[in-house]
């Protein structure tokens, strides 16, 4: 058998990923987000460094001198902001985000206990994957990013019937509803949901994503707002929080994603 190890692969492929490896230090970027206060900083660092073993201890310590809201907003969420930026810049990989978010979740749970009640999140997002569609990883990632940005998420799961989505949204009037479809043969659920919502008088922005859909398709029915990546979620939802209706979000879509809006 041939000795493959003697083959030079230089003429066959270029490791562009190694060429483009960031020379920026994660620490420098994170620094901008981390709080000055040493105790809150520890909490934020636990999130940044995915220390879900020590985070409970440090959050408890922080809760002694800080109100729970501050531990969340100025500690846990700041750590998560640093992670998000590092992910968006391509320096951290996705798992870092997910495990940091797990750590943050533990911290938030403790802080909420101290608060005595669930904290007021920025708003509720109802999420689902389309009827007949079992593909839900993208949705799950998006859910984590939304939670990390201070929203509460009601995840209806995958293969969710059109009417179930319509009923739930009509009942709870969330800030935003989202749908994910990876199959061209399931995505037609979205326009059906949108139409039924409108009949019910609901005008909630409906973020639609997943490999099957594209912007043109999503904008062909009412309420629909396209999202390409999970990382787009918070940007779009923030605008709903600012009171923009679906038409305005759709109109200003390019600007929102490029950060100019």
């Amino acid at each position, binding site marked *: *058998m041939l000795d*493959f190890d003697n*083959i030079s*692969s230089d003429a*066959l492929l270029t490791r*562009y990923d190694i060429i483009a490896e960031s020379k920026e230090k994660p620490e420098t970027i994170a620094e901008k987000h981390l709080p000055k206060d040493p105790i809150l900083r520890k909490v934020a660092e636990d999130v940044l460094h995915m220390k879900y073993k020590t985070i409970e201890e440090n959050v408890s310590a922080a809760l002694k001198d800080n109100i729970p809201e501050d531990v969340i907003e100025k500690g846990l969420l700041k750590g998560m902001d640093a992670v998000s930026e590092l992910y968006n810049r391509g320096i951290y990989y*996705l798992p870092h985000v997910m495990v940091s978010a797990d750590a943050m979740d533990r911290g938030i749970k403790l802080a909420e206990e101290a608060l005595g009640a669930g904290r007021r999140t920025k708003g509720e997002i109802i999420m689902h994957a389309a009827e007949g569609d079992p593909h839900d990883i993208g949705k799950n990632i998006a859910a984590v990013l939304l939670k990390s940005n201070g929203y509460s998420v009601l995840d209806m799961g995958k293969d969710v019937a059109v009417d179930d989505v319509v009923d739930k949204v009509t009942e709870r009037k969330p800030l935003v509803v989202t749908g994910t479809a990876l*199959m*061209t043969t399931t995505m*037609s659920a979205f326009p059906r949901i949108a139409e039924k919502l409108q009949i019910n008088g609901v005008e909630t922005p409906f973020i639609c994503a997943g490999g099957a859909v594209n912007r043109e398709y999503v904008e062909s029915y009412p309420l629909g707002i396209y999202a390409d990546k999970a990382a787009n979620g918070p940007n779009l939802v923030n605008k709903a929080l600012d009171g923009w209706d679906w038409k305005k979000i759709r109109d200003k879509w390019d600007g929102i994603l490029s950060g100019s809006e």
Partner: protein
Amino acid sequence: MSVNEFKKMAYSSADEMVFGESKHPKHYGLGLKVGAGFVVPEINFAPRPGTEKTPESLVREYVDYITKDVLERAITLGFPAIQIENEHIFQMVNDPEKFEKPVVIGQKEIMQEYHDEYGIACAIRHTIADPRLHEEGLRLGMDTKHTYPEKMMRAFEVAASNGADVISIESVGGKEVADHAVVRQDIKGWLFGIGYLGSLDMEWLWPQIVDIANKNNIVPGGDTNCAGANTAMFMAGGYMDRDIPRTFAAVTRAIAAARTLVAYECGATGPDKDCGYEGPIVKAISGFPSSQEGKGAQCAHCDMMGNLIAQTCDLWSNESVEYHPEFGGSSVQCWLGVIGYEAALMNASKQLKSEKTLRDIYVASDRFRSPEAFILSFDNAYKIGQAIVENNGSYYLRAKAAGLKAAELIEESSNEGKLKLSAQEKDALDRILLDLRSLPSEEGKFVDWALKEYADVPAFNPKNYEL
């Protein structure tokens, strides 16, 4: 663990493995032979959006347009043999009598016509969708809302008794835990999900599929870990992607092989599914014919081993393409051209007795393109297969051994400066080695630990696996 495990490797050496040759060739359908000295193109497709709305429009799309187009192009280009694969959409498994049956019948009729007129060798694989929801229940009687496992078994029967030549599935046991683990780069969780739970689910599912196939005198093809290792591969992507390190994806692939093997242990006979990139490992162990996809499946996804993965295939597939017009004909016709010519290339190399040279060129093209390509190179795939066979007796232990072997092979080559790794890939590899080596050497201990560790994973219900 199932009793019919493979006691030894089907091939006595890695070098013995080559495309178009299987230890157990199959003869089925309308004169088709697979793994019997030549490679056959396998064409896959998806209907246009909207055509799923009524049975009539779906039949028109699948039969009158797609199947006819494909056969016409095969004749036009002179391809001697062709396999068609229909990956069922949700509507077909949800209401088999209405949506599935007329499609299965219609496709076979038109194939028969062309076979009669031109003598083209052909067969069709029906891949039933696995619609089961982990949160509702995977086993019979559990999901009272959708009655999915029941509908799915019915869909198998409808296909088998109305024209399918091969039946397959991309089963989803263990996926709930693997999904949780993959985005956290948690190899232990992934091992539990796919290596252990996935194998248990297949051990339950596959004897039923084999029964249906045997009753109808057709072929129980095989399974694929699309739900697990392909998700990891897809997310790991290429040099512009940053979701999952490619070393992680590579190790999941090796683990997946230990699971996909279960179909054969339960009576499946191949050809396995095109999208199972674990195919080379499974073939090394089992000797059954293997369908693979790479360069000619760019319509469906871009992988980092477009050539390499052809090394040991018996069918060569395009994975799937949506039906639509192109300058060169319809999309299915164009992609059939791509895979059919590749099959012709492999077959030509056999005429020139250069098939091993061509195999080695395929491998050389991509061996160092990604860690996953590297461990699937037939020499390494063979070693991983050996690790599996040596650790038979426990789904957990053999899957762990496969993963560890893959990680070690990568480490070795990287240390020698051959396989290059980015910083992230290297970090992930180190953690994987640490994690896998830290695991207990007894299945029971591992399972006890994992049941606790992953108890809160959404949709994970031990009852789905009789645990």
